[in-house]
């Protein structure tokens, strides 16, 4: 029975993890930057309205609450994408190991 090539297996797994995290980060970065910038712009806009007495404290509070809810959704998206990335890395690693096992000891695993 052939032995598993552990150094090669490790190399493949790390390469997959890097690729998966990098792929999702390149999508996540512009999204996060855009949303955080928009949040800052809205906060500035509301502060200016208050400064010019166009809105009062009560309205400022209500409108900031809307910004908070929106930001919560952005953070939930980032959390969810992180979980999905982790899931893809784990399943990808399982796939690499399954493939290595198949080629060395010829057992097909249900992955």
């Amino acid at each position, binding site marked *: 029975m052939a032995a598993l090539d552990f150094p090669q297996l490790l190399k493949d797994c790390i390469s*997959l993890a890097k690729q*998966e995290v990098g792929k*999702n980060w390149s*999508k996540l970065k512009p*999204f996060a930057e855009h*949303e955080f910038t*928009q*949040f800052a*712009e*809205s906060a500035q*806009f*509301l502060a200016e*309205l208050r400064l*010019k007495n*166009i*809105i009062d404290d009560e309205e400022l509070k*209500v*409108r900031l*609450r*809307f*910004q908070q*809810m*929106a*930001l*919560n*959704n*952005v953070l*939930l*998206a980032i*959390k*969810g*994408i992180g*979980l*999905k*990335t*982790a*899931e*893809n*890395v*784990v*399943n*990808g690693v*399982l*796939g690499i*190991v*399954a493939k290595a*096992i198949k080629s060395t*000891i010829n*057992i097909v*695993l*249900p*992955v």
Partner: protein
Amino acid sequence: MKKNRVLIILLLVACKVTFITGYDPVIDDTATKMKRDFNMMMLKLAREVQDNDPANQAFTNYQSYYDNLETDLLILRDRSVYTGLKGEIVRKQIKNADSLLTGFMNLHKQGFADRPGDDKRDFRNAVNSALNSISQLQEALKSTGKE
């Protein structure tokens, strides 16, 4: 000993993991549609709350938009029920977007006064962010990590 090690590896490898619920095209499409409808409505509203006619931005003039919105929110709420045990993040996102849009609708019902300089862009940004976040997560949920 070696046999045991191989068995442990086999057992580990045979389990695919799921940390988060899968992609739902209905949630994705509905969020995209809601974003388009909301922005179209806001273009009109932003104009009307800055002119000198306090009557044109009345809630009743936007009834058709809000009827559509309530239907879309109903679809999202229903879909969120089927996201399963791993769908908590998606459910929270939908609940947030629901609160945000329902809150905006209630403010509109109370009436928006004409106020030059206040085009309500903060509401537009907030709703866009909330809906973008849903679409962005759904897009990520499509991936399997194998492509």
